[in-house]
């Protein structure tokens, strides 16, 4: 027997081009891009790290960091998992242009939000908390954990907007089956008419956390998601009495790291601001609605059943009183200016320009 002829490791000093090998659709707006080096290379990194990619769009070089969703336990390839972001130039470019065979410039991996498993340390218990596409670094950690410490005690709590937005749902289920000590739970803010969610609904809160992770204080926490989510996870962990030295968090948008492109965090913040809260007084529901989305569409997507028919501002079936807030509305005769003056709107063709309170 001779030594297997293993390829050398990727060396950021000399290697800087990755080749797309596969594109895997995860959800309606999330895809995983599987990458290898142009020459045979193995990848050595710690789960949770990211790489910086460079793309040229309209003649402008843009740099963007993406955490690796792949696990270093499978060193022959890398993967990033990217969500389409309205107005997000790089993310959308990847979705629209990056195809197998194409090259992309990349730097790294790097980053300190990592799960480091030392061989001699006493076994630890883990809790992975993620929301939305913040799942990528903790997915990498979970994969690595299952591959290398298949009996490690870990809980994976992932929050998504709806069942249609669950990333890696099948793989996580499969992993939980393979590793009995891994527990996976998903929480959806809401379900959709096409996709009823049988599990926990709403957002991560103290009651849910106490139910799913009664031994939270004994665990090491890895948290990734939007600012608000991480802030609330931190508060919940503190409340539960966790030694905060065991609390590790990462913003999935790398706002503080994207120094090469200061516009990106600004854009992401603008996107966050472009979603408005819409409260329905009679239904006692609160949803979020983007400035480009008709309120009715957002309400339907949130699983609400509101009377409506034509959905183009013609029939007026969806007429509601706007208690507070402002909208932009393009109707087609389904409402009178006098009614608008009296505070009525057609929610099928009204887009929020502020937070709204609607009598319905």
């Amino acid at each position, binding site marked *: 027997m001779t030594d297997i002829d293993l390829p050398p490791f990727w060396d950021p000093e000399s290697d800087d081009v990755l080749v797309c090998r596969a594109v895997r659709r995860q959800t309606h707006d999330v895809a995983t891009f599987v990458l290898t080096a142009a020459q045979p290379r193995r990848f050595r990194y710690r789960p949770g790290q990211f790489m910086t990619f460079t793309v040229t769009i309209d003649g402008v070089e843009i740099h963007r960091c993406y955490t690796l969703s792949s696990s270093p336990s499978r060193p022959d390839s890398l993967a990033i998992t990217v969500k389409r972001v309205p107005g997000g130039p790089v993310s959308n470019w990847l979705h629209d242009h990056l195809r197998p065979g194409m090259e992309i410039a990349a730097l790294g991996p790097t980053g300190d939000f990592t799960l480091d498993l030392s061989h001699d340390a006493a076994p630890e218990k883990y809790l992975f908390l993620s929301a939305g596409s913040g799942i990528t670094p903790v997915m990498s950690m979970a994969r690595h954990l299952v591959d290398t410490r298949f009996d490690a005690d870990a809980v994976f709590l992932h929050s998504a907007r709806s069942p249609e937005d669950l990333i890696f749902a099948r793989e996580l289920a499969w992993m939980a089956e393979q590793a009995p000590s891994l527990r996976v739970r998903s929480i959806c803010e809401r379900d959709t008419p096409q996709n009823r969610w049988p599990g926990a609904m709403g957002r991560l809160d103290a009651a849910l956390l106490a139910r799913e992770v009664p031994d939270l204080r004994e665990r090491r926490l890895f948290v990734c998601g939007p600012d608000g989510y991480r802030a609330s996870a931190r508060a919940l962990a503190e409340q539960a009495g966790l030694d905060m030295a065991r609390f590790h968090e990462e913003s999935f948008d790398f706002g503080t790291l994207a120094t090469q492109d200061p516009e990106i965090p600004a854009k992401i913040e603008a996107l966050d601001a472009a979603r408005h809260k819409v409260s329905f007084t009679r239904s006692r529901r609160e949803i979020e609605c983007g400035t480009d989305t008709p309120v009715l569409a957002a309400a339907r997507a949130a699983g609400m059943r509101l009377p409506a028919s034509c959905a183009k501002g013609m029939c007026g079936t969806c007429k509601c009183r706007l208690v507070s807030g402002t909208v932009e509305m393009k*109707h087609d005769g389904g409402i009178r200016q006098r009614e608008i003056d009296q505070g009525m709107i057609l929610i099928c063709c009204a887009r929020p320009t502020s937070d709204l309170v609607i009598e319905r």
Partner: protein
Amino acid sequence: MTNYDIAAIRDLVARRRPRHALESAFYTSPEIFAADMDAIFNRHWLYVAVECEVPEPGDALAVDIGKSSVIIVRGDDAQVRAFHNVCRHRGARLLPPGPALVGNLVCPYHAWTYGLDGALKFAEHMGDGFDRACLGLRPVALRSMAGLLFVCLSDDPPDDIDDVVRQMEPYLAPHDLKNTRVAHTADLIEYGNWKLVLENNRECYHCMPNHPELTIPLFAYGFGFAPEELSAEDLAQAERYETLRRTSHDRWEAAGLPSRLIEHLDDRPTGFRTERLPLDGSGESQTMDTMAACRVPLGTLRDKAAGGLHFWTQPNAWHHFMGDHVVTFSVIPLDEGRTLVRTKWLVHKDAVEGRDYDLENLTSVWNATNRQDADLVEMTQRGVADPAYVPGPYSPHTEGLVEKFMEWYLARLKAHLG
């Protein structure tokens, strides 16, 4: 299919004694009621609303007439139109009775959506080959007579309406109905056949004993009396009225206010009568003190003592147009023994209640009078249903216009029955 015996009704019509009340069956039989709806209410011009009730595009009003319901709506082109209040899909009523503000006309059932011109704009899930063009709302004939809205449920409405409009508009125009608004509406169900309601309206024989309020502004002898029976005092009253009528007509006509009598109650499909009548006291308005109830005058009327222009149409309306306000009445039969009398008081659209008029003062004469008339009609309905009832004669002096109503009614019924 008619649900009445045409031959039997023809016989009843044929044996009616002229200048006498009708036989009991005309007031009590559901079959004759059905024939009345067919022959009279589904075929003649009916006064149903005032244009100021639909002042702006999107204003709609649904009015029930028997089994029918009509939507009156003002479109974006400012035109007022009328449609049957029946969805072309599975027939649901589009609007409940009463006023509404609509964008388009939308069936609440499956949201079929019609433009205010009646065209079907939207209907979901109807598949290929679905022809919207064939499924617009069915129009109802509509005429505005200086702001009074008349509809005809027939596809072949009497065409003499144009002539009535032509003759009436000069009388009505000075009151400028388009710049009024409804200050008050009263719906009163009278427990009597619709013909008893009309008969009661077409004479003032009953006014002296029954209408102490109405006879303050209105001369009880304005619609005829038997001179030989009057006391010297009553005769003086009657002469005073006659003189006042003559001098008033001269004054009004000279001022460009058409006033003289036009009477075509029984010689045409759209029978009508009009005359500007002097009022007692100050001569201003039908109020308890005969003074104007509203400070804001109507239209071009600057002579406060403009009396009351009365306007009747067969088969269902009467009105009083005064310098400060207008009272309109429409009669909608509900069944053989119940009739809706809808009264509307109109004032200038800028008049403010409490500042320019007092609603109680505006409405008190006719609220009292309507209540009294409802009681009289109900008494009569009970009496004519009594097996002992035998039709009696009309007064040749005071009930000539009742007879003209009857002549019109029987002729129209006969024309329909053939």
